[in-house]
Structure formats: structure tokens, C-alpha cells
């Protein structure tokens, strides 16, 4: 039932007189649904009740707005309408299942759990006032709820997209390439687990943040990475995922201005996303950093990213998102590939590796070393690994791709072709496969790789 409002908002977006309006509803839905849901969960004290109410309010919008025009503050209109709808339903249901409705309620309006027996009558009275105060913090509360550490990362991401991003279950399933039924079950289970466990709708206190903030950052980062990865034909949903991750990143960074990692993650996403339109060529093949047309980089994104990072750049003890953002910032500041401050890049990778050994970083550092000191030392760095690491990296596509590239540049084409073969075999993305195949071909015919 909670899907119906959004579905209505989307399905009507075909041509016709209603098209323009339903586009307006959809655009409000995209922008406001997370905020409205977050507020309604606080006001109503229950996730499902809030979702249903927001969806119903958008359905009402589809019939009212053509007649009355789009209201000045559509978000507030949706929130108020949703609250009223939920109230009507509670009144209706209270005549029959008073106890059930009261028990259904998870959170009290003061943020406590609703486990203590509050009657529907009192609940309706509580909710009876006309004003619904929209509190910016509500979205933060909802982020911490969706990314509660008792939920698996997959569930955290799904719930975040569903409740804060306003994405529908089929869209989330498509984006993460899992069957719709699997995704639906994942979301239902996560919501039930939070309810059964009496999870509270609150922002963690300072002392809890070391445990509670990382999963929130990780979920947003995962949403972004999924959206940014050029995998297959479902491009549209993926771009939406990136944009949604950036939107969530802004909410988090603005509401937690003292958290350097929140700023770092947002900066990283902005600086990475700035390169989006330069990453793929006309045929959809991946363009490496060296070959990207830097005029196509989004300067607004870059400016915002650097701006978010600046206040923190001299603070000690950077977290992983801040270090990665600094890396992206080095690239963003370089006018050409040749101008890149590779020494700084290698230093930053060393900082990352000092925190935690990570094959991805080992490979990236070697590539940067290749730019700084040439292919020979870079190949040494790639191959200077333990047997355990080698076993792990043998199935890691970027390791083979980086080796192939360095071998080609070192004038060892037959070994390079072999490494390209291995990399191609491990590639899931069409765009990447085309890119690697072209490189291998260049190696075979003795051309210098681009």
C-alpha cells in the first residue's frame, strides 16, 4: 500500500495534460519524501504508518493540485496532509482494534518507545494539533535508524534508499541487481527487526558516535559507489543513486558540522561525481583519468567539494573518507594529467595503507608510483606482496589491469597481453571490458596505449 502513492506519481508521467503536473508531483516526491517520512515517523511514532500516510498524501496531491495549483510549500502541504490522513485512519481503526493500534506504535512523540500502553484516544489527541513542526534533525534521526548497527549493511542501504530516498522497492532491487522479492523481504525484515527490538528514534549522543556514525557513512558511500559504477544498461537509476547519495551526504554534513568524516565523504562524492560526464566516451567505454577531457569536469561540483574539504585539511588524524577526498582533490586541482602532484598522491596512499592494509590501495598506489617514477618501480610495488596477498589479488581485476598497463608501458607486450586477458576475464562491466579489449589490441599491434 505504501508504494501506491509513489507509483501513482510516476505512472501518470506519460504525455497528456496531466503529465506536467504529475512531473511536478514526482519532483516534489523526489525532493521531499524522505524529509516528510522522517518527520511523520517522529509525529506518528511508527515507520509503516508514516510511509503509508506520506504515500496517501502524494495520491491526494495528484487529484488536488490540478484543481488548486501546486501549493507554495509543497513539502509542508504533504506533511500536513499525511498527518491528517494517518489521524483519520487511527480514528477509523481505533473503533475496532484499539489495543492493536496502540501496540503498533513504536516510538512515543517524546522519542521514547511506545511500549507503554497509550490508548488510541490519547494518541489521536496528541496528534490533533494542526501544526506539524518539520525538524531538520528528523532526517538525521532516520539515517541513524536506517543504519543501526544491528542491521546488515545490505539492509541499511536498502532501508536508507527506501525511507530517506523515497525510492521504491523495485527500483532498489534493480539498482542492486537482486530479485524484487528478495529486496522486499530484506526491507520488511529490517523494519520488523527495528520494531521488535524497540529501536528508538533518536540521534546518538557524542559517546555513541564512534559506533554509530561509520555505518551511516558506509551506507551513503555504498549508494554512491553503486550509482557511480558504470556497470550495465540500467544507467538512469544509477545516476539517481549518485545524486541521492550526495543529497544524503549534504544533509549529514550540514546536520553534523563537527564531523570531519561527514565532510570528507561529501567532498569525496562531489569531487568524484564532478568527473562523471568525462568518464565514459560516446560508445560507453571507460575513459581513464589520463585521457579524460577535463573541460567536461563539473566545476560547480569541484568547487563545492574543495569548499567542504578546506576547513578540515590541516586537522590531524584524517579518516579514510577525508584522505580519499584529499586524493580526489589533488586530481581536481591538476589542470592536466601531467600536472598531477603524484608525490602527494603516493603520500596520501601511504597514509591510507598505514591505517589498514587494503589491496585496492596497494594497486592504486602502484599506479601513482608509475606516474611518479615510471613503470619499473611501480611493477616492483605491485609484485612485492606476500603469498596470501597474491592469492587474494589474483581474483582482483584492477590488479591485473594495472599490471597489464604498466607492463605495456615497460615495453613487455607479451606479458601485458597475458595480464589483459586475465583482467578481461574478471570484468563484469561492458564498458570496462571494451576499454581493456582495446588496450590489449593496441599491445598486440605494437601501438603505444593511449
Amino acid at each position, binding site marked *: 500500500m505504501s508504494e501506491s502513492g509513489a507509483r501513482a506519481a510516476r505512472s501518470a508521467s506519460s504525455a497528456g495534460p496531466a503529465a506536467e503536473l504529475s512531473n511536478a508531483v514526482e519532483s516534489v516526491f523526489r525532493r521531499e519524501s524522505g524529509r516528510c517520512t522522517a518527520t511523520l515517523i517522529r509525529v506518528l511514532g511508527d515507520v509503516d504508518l508514516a510511509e503509508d500516510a506520506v504515500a496517501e498524501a502524494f495520491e491526494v496531491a495528484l487529484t488536488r493540485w490540478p484543481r488548486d495549483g501546486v501549493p507554495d510549500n509543497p513539502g509542508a502541504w504533504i506533511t500536513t496532509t499525511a498527518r491528517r490522513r494517518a489521524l483519520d485512519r487511527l480514528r477509523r481503526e481505533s473503533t475496532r482494534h484499539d489495543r492493536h493500534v496502540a*501496540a503498533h506504535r513504536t516510538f512515543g512523540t517524546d522519542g*521514547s*518507545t511506545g*511500549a*507503554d500502553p497509550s490508548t488510541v484516544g490519547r494518541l489521536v489527541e496528541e496528534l490533533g494539533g494542526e501544526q506539524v513542526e518539520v525538524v531538520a534533525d528528523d532526517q538525521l534521526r532516520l539515517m541513524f535508524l536506517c543504519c*543501526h*548497527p*544491528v542491521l546488515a549493511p545490505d539492509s541499511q542501504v536498502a532501508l536508507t534508499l527506501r525511507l530517506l530516498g523515497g525510492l521504491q522497492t523495485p527500483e532498489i532491487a534493480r539498482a542492486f541487481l537482486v530479485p524484487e522479492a528478495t529486496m522486499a523481504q530484506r526491507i520488511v525484515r529490517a523494519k520488523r527487526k*527495528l520494531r*521488535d*527490538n*524497540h*529501536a*528508538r528514534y*533518536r540521534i*546518538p549522543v557524542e559517546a*555513541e558516535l564512534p559506533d554509530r556514525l561509520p555505518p551511516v557513512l558506509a551506507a551513503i558511500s555504498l549508494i554512491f559507489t553503486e550509482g557511480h559504477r558504470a556497470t550495465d544498461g540500467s544507467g538512469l537509476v544509477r545516476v539517481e543513486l549518485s545524486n541521492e547519495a550526495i543529497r544524503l551526504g549534504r544533509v549529514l554534513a550540514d546536520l553534523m558540522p563537527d564531523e570531519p568524516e561527514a565532510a570528507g565523504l561529501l567532498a569525496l562524492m562531489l569531487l568524484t561525481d564532478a568527473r562523471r560526464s568525462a568518464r565514459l566516451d560516446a560508445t560507453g567505454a571507460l575513459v581513464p583519468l589520463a585521457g579524460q577531457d577535463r573541460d567536461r569536469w563539473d566545476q560547480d561540483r569541484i568547487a563545492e567539494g574543495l569548499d567542504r574539504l578546506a576547513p578540515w585539511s590541516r586537522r590531524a588524524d584524517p579518516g579514510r573518507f577525508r584522505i580519499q577526498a584529499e586524493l580526489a582533490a589533488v586530481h581536481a586541482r591538476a589542470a592536466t594529467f601531467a600536472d598531477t602532484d603524484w608525490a602527494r598522491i603516493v603520500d596520501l596512499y601511504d597514509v591510507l595503507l598505514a591505517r589498514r592494509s587494503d589491496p585496492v590501495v596497494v594497486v592504486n598506489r602502484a599506479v601513482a608510483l608509475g606516474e611518479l617514477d615510471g613503470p619499473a618501480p611501480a611493477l616492483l610495488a605491485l609484485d612485492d606482496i606476500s603469498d596470501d596477498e597474491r592469492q587474494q589479488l589474483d581474483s582482483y581485476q584492477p590488479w591485473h589491469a594495472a599490471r597489464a598497463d604498466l607492463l605495456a608501458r615497460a615495453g613487455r607486450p607479451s606479458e601485458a597481453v597475458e595480464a589483459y586477458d586475465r583482467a578481461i576475464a574478471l570484468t563484469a562491466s561492458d564498458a570496462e571490458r571494451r576499454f581493456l579489449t582495446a588496450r590489449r589490441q593496441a599491445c598486440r599491434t605494437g601501438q603505444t596505449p593511449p
Partner: protein
Amino acid sequence: MAQYLLSVWHDEDYIDAFETTPPEVIERLHAQVGALNADMEKKGVWVFGGGLVPASSATVVRPGTDGDVSITDGPYAEAKEMMGGFWVIEAPDLDSALEWTRRAALACEGAVELRPFQDE
């Protein structure tokens, strides 16, 4: 207030561990768990709790067809994992229960499962 079960789990052969754990380790665990119990009581969290002897001493009773029951030797689950003890606690919400679970895992130096009771 909600009630939660905190159960302590053992992976390896619990029976061997039960008999071969050095006395100083047992003493340390007792002291840690005792301190936690005391704090749970002080904060009004403790409802019930205790350690269990190995599951090889368990008996299963099943309802039969003739209105009587059948009795079998040994634990119900043939799992390698065994519950070695548990607490029932009363806490205002998940975050509070999770914090007690964290302390329980550190006190008994083993995995502790947090699971809410049904309401009412």
C-alpha cells in the same frame, strides 16, 4: 520498558572447555560476570540470569500421540554451537540493551546474542 534475552554462546567443544579451562581463567570470568550482574541489579536492569552446565546433560521431552510424552537423552539441537548461559534484562530500548550486550560479551569473553521478547 522491554525485556531482552542475552544468551552466551560457545563454538568449540564446550564440554572440554568446561573441564579444561584453567582455574585462573574461570576465576577471572566469574569476577567479570559477577561485577556485571551487580551493576545490572543496581541499575534495575537484571531480571534473571545464570550459567548452564554443558548440553550433554540436557534431556528432551516431546509430546507423544497417546497423550503421553517421550523422553530422549541429549540436547534438542544437534548444533556445534551451544548456549552456555543467559540473562533476561529489562531495558528502555535497543540502544540500551545493545550496550548491556556489549558489556556482557566483554565480561564473559565470548559471543552474546541479543534477542527481544515478544510484547506482553
